[in-house]
């Protein structure tokens, strides 16, 4: 069980997405998932070992590390990736439910499978709203937990059992900051894609609805 599962899930969703949805899947795969696995994980790999405090007091380093990193950047990043990809499951379940019903009744109950209409459209729109919501929540969490997206070189720590205010040094702060900004940029891009897909779908189907009603009126 690893990131391959997420990759398979997203590939499955691709079939029922719009064009913008497919671009979103490509961005998530390449600029988020691949960068996370191939690049970012290694930066944060030894963060605890390389976190150094100017003190010999046993336990002080552990306590300070825990104080400044309640949840590590890299774990938050992984959680964000998982939560943001999960709403797509709603669409997959709905399609599976439809196919099951069709099999059960042994007849075609819905229009062509590629078409997003009616109930499936609602599910798709809800999944888009949830995806955007999760992105914003995680970005806000990052901002609140770490006072912006900066990673300082030096943090001052005075938590017990540290005897006084000690200097603690974070490893690779610049590299971590660069990748945090990268994460924020890709998150922002995904939010923009989701919002445009939402607007596009709402606009398209409102026009369709309006035209149907207009044609009915004049018949």
């Amino acid at each position, binding site marked *: 069980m690893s990131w391959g599962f997420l990759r398979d899930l997203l590939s499955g969703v691709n079939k029922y997405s719009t064009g913008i949805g497919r671009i979103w899947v490509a961005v998530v795969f390449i600029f988020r998932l691949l960068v996370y*696995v191939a690049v970012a994980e290694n930066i944060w790999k030894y963060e605890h070992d390389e976190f150094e405090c100017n003190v010999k007091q046993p336990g002080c380093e552990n306590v300070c590390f825990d104080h400044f990193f309640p949840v590590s950047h890299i774990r938050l990043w992984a959680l964000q990736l998982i939560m943001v990809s999960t709403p797509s499951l709603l669409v997959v379940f709905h399609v599976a439910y439809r196919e099951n019903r069709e099999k059960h009744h042994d007849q075609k109950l819905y229009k062509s499978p590629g078409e997003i209409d009616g109930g499936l459209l609602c599910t798709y729109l809800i999944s888009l709203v949830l995806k955007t919501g999760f992105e914003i929540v995680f970005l806000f969490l990052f901002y609140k937990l770490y006072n912006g997206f900066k990673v300082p070189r030096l943090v001052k720590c005075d938590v017990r059992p540290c005897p006084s205010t000690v200097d603690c*040094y974070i490893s690779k702060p610049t590299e971590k900051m660069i990748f945090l900004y990268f994460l924020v940029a890709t998150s922002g891009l995904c939010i923009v894609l989701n919002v445009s897909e939402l607007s596009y779908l709402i606009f398209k189907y409102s026009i369709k609805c309006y035209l149907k009603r207009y044609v009915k009126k004049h018949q």
Partner: protein
Amino acid sequence: MDWGALHTILGGVNKHSTSIGKIWLTVLFIFRIMILVVAAEKVWGDEQDDFVCNTLQPGCKNVCYDHFFPISHIRLWALQLIFVSTPALLVAMHVAYRRHEKKRQFIKGDQKCEYKDIEEIRKQRFRIEGTLWWTYTSSIFFRLVFEAVFMYAFYFMYDGFRMPRLMKCNAWPCPNTVDCFVSRPTEKTVFTVFMIAVSSICILLNVAELCYLLTKFFLRRSKKAGNPKHHPNHENKEETKQNEMNELISDSCQNTVIGFSS
């Protein structure tokens, strides 16, 4: 999810590339991605652990390492490879869009569509003409830009491509100017030079491919400019497109004069 997934994604693009494009893809996978994963990652694996400064001052090593390596070589390369591979996706998306349109035509039972079944549409190889030419050329252009930007970033950040053995550091909290020693500097220099060399080869391949595509485009244009003068029935744009499509269709197609039916 790893480099193998990128290989799967880009492998599909291979079918619709020119020969130079196929060579570029091979060079990318064998001499860059594979070398990165199999060798380079191990050389840079212990870089901070074995970065040693001649001081006992806690924190000095961390700060000096961060000062000299704002972003590690290995991370820059990985980003470069990801960014350089991404424009090929534009081509993959365009091809997928065309296939989707042809499938839709086929399902509608359109008279114009000449495919016998969906498998044929899936297996079909599109020629690099029309809008696909523009997409393909832009993707090569972006590839060149990304390669150049990353090579410049390397040169700018590390003052050339050599990894020194010794660096002098006086960032706070180091008490004075301390000597810091990089681990495996010669091996890192060798790999850096190798990666830069392969990057340059990829740039040359991209430039060659761009020239080839431009030459083909201008030749085709001059041929077309020559043709209408000799043709009694002046073809309009749509019929020319239809004729191009007909050229793509296999020999089993029965009706070959559709373009002239009107």
